[in-house]
């Protein structure tokens, strides 16, 4: 669709000069916002219709604000010729701002380009570049994450000491074992069992 149409004759007919001079070079910008996946937009509308009615289209950083019709079309009225910036504000979607040139010399001609990636648009149909996910996704419960946590590591180490160490001790040569035990006794190093309550009784 032709995106820029000059405001028709009825303005030029007006007699009060102060007003008509302002609107002589006023144009309309018409466009369309398209959100894929059939959310709202002329389709059944059961999929989050609230999202569609909360979409705003802003011209030049909020100078003009307009809303979408049920079919996604929008228009700005009485815009002077020049280069303008259109932004779309929609929760959940990232839209690139669009540079729109409204030409005074050849009315009806539209030039639009996305400023984010400099892609030209043949018609003013704005689509989101990506969806925006505002929340972190909670990872499902897994044994690995539990084990990786500091507490998990502590328990793991404890278990390793408690059950693997005796195994290691068992595999030692009985001779060497006895020598080591004697050495320890002679040095008087208290064993774990003697530290515990009741350990002193033997």
């Amino acid at each position, binding site marked *: 669709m032709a995106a820029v149409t000059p405001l028709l004759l009825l303005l030029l007919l007006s007699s009060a000069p102060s007003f008509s001079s302002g609107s002589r070079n006023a144009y309309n910008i018409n466009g369309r916002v398209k959100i894929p996946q059939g959310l709202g937009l002329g389709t059944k509308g059961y999929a989050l219709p609230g999202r569609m*009615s909360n979409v705003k289209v802003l011209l030049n950083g909020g100078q003009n604000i307009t809303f979408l019709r049920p079919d996604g079309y929008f228009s700005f009225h009485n815009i002077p010729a020049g280069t303008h910036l259109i932004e779309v504000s929609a929760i959940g979607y990232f839209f690139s701002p669009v540079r729109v040139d409204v030409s005074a010399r050849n009315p009806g001609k539209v030039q639009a380009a996305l400023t984010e990636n400099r892609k030209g648009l043949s018609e003013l149909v704005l689509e989101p570049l990506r969806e925006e996910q505002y929340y972190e996704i909670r990872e499902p419960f897994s044994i690995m994450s539990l084990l990786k946590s500091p507490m998990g590591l502590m328990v793991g180490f404890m278990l390793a000491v408690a059950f693997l160490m005796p195994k290691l001790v068992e595999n030692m040569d009985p001779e060497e074992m006895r020598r080591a035990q004697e050495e320890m006794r002679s040095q008087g190093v208290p064993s774990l069992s003697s530290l515990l309550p009741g350990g002193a009784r033997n």
Partner: protein
Amino acid sequence: MAIRSFFLFILFFSSSLSPVFSLYEDQVGLMDWHQQYIGKVKQAVFSSQRAGRKRVVVSTEENVIASLDLRHGEIFWRHLLGADDVIDGIDIGLGKYVITLSSGGSILRSWNLPDGQMVWESSLQGPKLSKSFLLVPTNLKFDKDNVLVVFSNGRLHAISCIDGEVLWKKDFEAESFEVQQVIQPPGSDLIYVVGFAASYQFEMYQINAKNGELLKHESASFSSGFSGEVSLVSTETVVALDSTGSILLTISFQDGKISSQQTPISNLVEDSLGLAVIIPSSVSGIFAIKTDAVTVFIRVIGEGKLEVVEKTTHEIAVSDALSISEDQQAFALIQHASSEIHLTVKLAHDWDGNLLKESVKMDWQRGLVHKVFINNYIRTDRSYGFRVLIVMEDHSLLLLQQGEIVWSREDGLASIIDVTTSELPVERNGVSVAKVEHNLFEWLKGHMLKLKGTLMLASPEDMAAIQSMRLKSSEKSKMTRDHNGFRKLLIVLTRAGKLFALHTGDGRIVWSHLLRSLHKSEACQSPIGLNLYQWQVPHHHAMDENPSVLVVSRCGPSSDTPGVLSFVDTYTGKELSSLSLDHAVVQVIPLPYTDSTEQRLHLLINADKHAHLYPKTSEALSIFKREFLNIYWYSVEDQNGIIKGHALKCKCTGEVADEFCFDTRDLWSVVFPSESEKIVATVTRKLNEVVHTQAKVVADQDVMYKYISRNLLFVATVAPKGSGEIGSVTPEESWLVAYLIDTVTGRILHRVTHHGSQGPVHAVFSENWVVYHYFNLRAHRYEMSVIEIYDQSRADNKDVWKLVLGKHNLTSPISLFSRPEVITKSQSYFFTHSLKAIAVTSTAKGITSKQLLLGTIGDQVLALDKRFLDPRRTVNPTQAEKEEGIIPLTDSLPIIPQSYVTHALRVEGLRGIITVPAKLESTTLVFAHGVDLFFTQLAPSRTYDSLTEDFSYALLLITIVALVAAIFVTWRLSERKELQEKWR
């Protein structure tokens, strides 16, 4: 020192690039709260739908159009129009479309009543500016299509209600014709347009509503002229006042013939009233005139005869008429009487017969009733019941029904002017408001639920129970000071002149106070609140003294009207005292000195550049005298493009001896050439900002010293041509110049020009850097730039040997006349969105890294790490730089959706972002306000000094239990083994 290095160590650890602010969906509402408002209601229309929930559609002074639930006052849907898109009228068409006329009558929109989806929009133009009217006739049909009648910009339109097509239009081009009323008598196909021409001629146009054909045009001249508004007393009679305001003109235009009658007001009311004005109302047969003291209701009894029905000195408010049957109209009248308001519902033709008379107790903190809207319903016994919606002086909205307030909305909070914070009382015995609601069983149950949740064994119902338990945790909404400094009071001043204290824990209103000093009085015609300052913050006497705030206001819109000060206790909300000043308040300078009662000294500059010291005590004066020569300030005259520096000179040399008044002198001035530069933004550092260290350790063990001065001012100027909207100028004739100016000496420390750029400029200044946002016309994208300023004078002192040998320059005198040795570094990046506000996080000690808070055009708040705006970023950082945390240079700043502070919410109509440090170093409190309010806690470098909210205590307990169990098991095992060994 150990703690400091520990912090640095931790900061280093936490400097990963993943978004720091990120939230799981189930954490919404734990730290943050969000409140939705609409603003002061201008017009309300009740939906007459029989089925479904009862609604009322309102338009407000914040340019909001909203549909509210009539039962509870909740918002069904809401749209905020643009700032220039002021709503002129709303109505409901066909029972299912909300019609709004806005932008001075040039945009007509239709919205679907159930869900708020816009149905159509049309642009209405016309030959000249005029009043605008929106009529929705119920019985005017055009090919089965209901017709809307709109008069705007000197043109009458008939518009289809279904698709917004203009069916016909008719211009009223006569130069001097000023439309006053557009009337569509029900049951006829005629439209009357009446108005004045050349201020003494009454004009009446009769138009065929079917095709816009002009049927009749009559005019009559009145030599005495007209003043003010006209009131419509029937479909064919209007009442106006003459230019002297003492004669009432009753003009009827029955059957297209104009006839009139003049009645001097003095004939109706004996005592002279002074200048009167007509209060417009739509009640047939009755109108009201109001003078300073008295309101008089007058009835029109055929043939232009007038009769006074009631005279009252109370403040009153009248609703529009409501037709309750074929020929009966009712209206509501509200009168104030001390602590009550009296509501009466009367029939238009029978003044003395009241349909309803009720008295409602009204909190005087709400002020006067400003507007009344009436609606009726049919009771079970088939009689008529009435409910009224009232708008109060503090902008709140209340629904009255059967003598009670059914619901109320604090919509004054939609227009916040200024915000400050206050600490809560210190907890002591008897002061604590916390309840001991947990018994042991509940406590255990709660922990079992949490354990289930952690182990992912919880059912959805359990999850919901856990969520509500976390939200309700009484900890965060206690009324006492907490250890971490998360609980505070937000003191906000609204446009209505009301102060609110909001609790940061859950956003509830702790107290509210309509300032007496902001009440309209004879001395002060239209008081406006300006600013809030912290007046007294007791630290030494925190147990027995309450903090207080200073509210500065003035009596009128211009800056030379006298000012008013009020002092409000922040714990109780009581107004301690108020002062009507005999001078204006142009600038308020909070001085960094406090007296023995910890009242902060403030300097108020008036229009004649005299400085007045407050509080007016001899102690304050003696403190002030000591610091007399150390006080400097600056002023910005953005109209003339001049920035001036000032200092104090001597005592006032006026005729009245006032020892608290001082003369000032100009020290310096910077004049920007008006033909090439226009000031668009000035920013300084926040007064209470804390900087941890001046040194910045950069890669390869080098040190740079930040140039930290409280007296730095950032100024942005643009070419005068480029100060308009985007697209109004070509890149060649537009530029933006950024300055860093020392406000004591007036020296320009740095100046940079961005060619082909224009405003609006949003900037924030912190420590030794400034970040600003502007529009680059060449790339047609927004850009953000950073300037960092470093002190070079101490750069040589890094050598330890020099320090040891005494060859350093630390003791060399500092003079204002010597040029400071500074270097600046800057860099620019593209940024996608337009901005509405910008702020920076602030923490208690200034150790935690900073984040920028960007209020985007979509009314969201984005947190952006300052490291993205580091002028030392390069495309290929070296290994050492990477270790320091320098991010490779990209041409645009990233927008990470998870770092939106407001997550999936919008702070509709965002105006400002305020950050307040908590006591816990890692955390900062963020409050964003606009039409909505939003509050959250942020930890820019994660919470390195406390456990996070989702820390699993259950897992810790399980671990400890498991360890203890394991100890005992192994002990048993070892004992048994020992025994076996002994037997062997």
